[in-house]
């Protein structure tokens, strides 16, 4: 069966339209980006507000005992916060598509719209593509918008101390435009797979959301000083997720088999 992009785009169009009219979901999608942007800005502001506080140096030395005596502990901690926060920021492109894709796939079952949809000429690959696009496009757009706001916010609050723009830097730019879409694809793939197996969107969301726990755990490791984040560290994460993405894509198309879906849920 030939893949017809027009039919995949039709699924995308419908899901995107449905998302735009789902106020509850839109609000819940905005909460996480707001936290992801405001929390690090607040942390940077705290360091800028009292850059000479004696405790800052103690904290900085905990992370880097070789920190030169004359170096600004506040500046060091700001740089470390920005590097570490990228790990947390990646939770957003994973979590937002989970919210959308769970609604879109398991929601079709809940609303009993799956059978008429599967009785149309759309193929499983077109369905997965359309639904994935409908989850990925808003997620990546939200991530990039949040990144812009994050850069502007950090630069404004850090300016009194550093007198130069800190953001966007190379790590964040590469991470947000290359690694974040890979993570979004991962979140979407997990949500599609789980949604195909469970009957309710809420359950699909709850189960899918568990995949953010390793990410949060790694950030915890960074804060505890166990893991040292940097360009290579995030590049490795991206490579692992790329492999997982390929596996998820293959499994999603296999699992969204028309017969299996109809006999289980139709």
């Amino acid at each position: 069966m030939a893949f017809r992009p027009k039919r995949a785009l039709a699924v995308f169009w419908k899901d995107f339209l449905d998302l735009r009219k789902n106020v509850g979901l839109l609000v819940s999608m905005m909460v996480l980006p707001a936290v992801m942007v405001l929390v690090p800005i607040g942390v940077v502001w705290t360091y800028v507000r009292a850059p000479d506080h004696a405790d800052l140096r103690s904290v900085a030395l905990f992370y880097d005992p070789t920190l030169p005596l004359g170096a600004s502990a506040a500046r060091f901690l700001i740089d470390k916060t920005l590097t570490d926060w990228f790990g947390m920021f990646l939770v957003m492109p994973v979590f937002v598509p989970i919210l959308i894709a769970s609604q879109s796939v398991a929601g079709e079952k809940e609303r009993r719209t799956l059978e008429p949809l599967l009785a149309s000429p759309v193929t499983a690959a077109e369905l997965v593509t359309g639904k994935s696009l409908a989850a990925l496009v808003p997620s990546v757009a939200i991530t990039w918008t949040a990144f812009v706001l994050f850069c502007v916010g950090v630069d404004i609050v850090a300016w009194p101390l550093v007198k130069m723009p800190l953001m966007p830097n190379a790590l964040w730019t590469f991470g947000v435009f290359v690694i974040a879409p890979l993570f979004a694809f991962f979140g979407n793939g997990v949500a599609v797979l789980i949604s195909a197996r469970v009957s309710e969107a809420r359950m699909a969301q709850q189960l899918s959301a568990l995949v953010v726990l390793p990410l949060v755990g790694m950030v915890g490791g960074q804060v505890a000083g166990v893991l040292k984040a940097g360009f290579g560290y995030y590049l490795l994460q991206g490579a692992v997720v790329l492999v997982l993405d390929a596996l998820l894509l293959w499994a999603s198309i296999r699992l969204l088999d028309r017969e299996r879906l109809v006999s289980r849920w139709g």
Partner: protein
Amino acid sequence: MSGIHVQELGKRFGDRVAVEALSFHVRPGEVFGLLGPNGAGKTTTVRMLTGLLQPTEGEATVWGHRVDRDGELLRKVVGLLTEQPGLYDRLTARENLRFFMKLHELDEAAAWPRARHYLERFGLGGREHEPVGGFSKGMRQKLAIVRTLVHDPKVIFLDEPTSGLDPESARTVRDAVAELASEGRTIVLCSHNLAEVERLCERVAVVKRRLLAMGPVRELRHAGQALEVRVEGEAERFRGALAQLPFAPNVLAEGPKLRVMLADDAQAPDVVACLVGAGARVHSAVPTQRPLEEVYLELLREGRG
């Protein structure tokens, strides 16, 4: 090859047999009824014929497309109205229809006039910009029917099309079904509403996992003809005498009335003679056709045996 041709079709889900050895054909322009109790395999049969499920035995073609290998082409020529309307509540009626036009890769400018014609026909004209979530059950059902027709299907499967509709709307739907058939489309109607099936369908198949009976409604009813006899006094006391007849007919007795099921017209004089011989004063004996419902229920009872 137009119409529907089904040959020894079967479907198993693991060890469970949902449908077995089903054979029938439906001509273009025919309205064909598929009757059976819940769990009889009607929905499974329709799902196989619309390419949603793969048969495990036998073969079938719908408008020339093999159901086991031409899924995509098949789904372009069939329209399926499912038991649940399955509409997107946040989308307007027009957006719901547009989505299915896009899935069928139709040019909206060309397809919309047909959709609007059916919207008007079903009393939904002027409501196309309203979200479906605010529609009544009947309006949703009618919109689902319009969605079924939006790509101008050659074969239409309707599962309980008048479910939830008021009598006037149900009549509109029935008229539309007859009109669609007159345009040469093949229509398969699954329903529990036997009066509706009797009114719309030329032929029916009664299924309960396998085919129990099939034929024109008139013939099925004729095959189940009865003799209604009015006697003096309680009719119940003559049941025993009738049971002695060589063809041992099924008998229902109610007050002075006896309803004797016959396999053949020629059995009627024997019944009357038997009653007279047993001392009955016969006031009238009228051959009648049984309602489809009675034939249907008897077929199911036999099927159970």
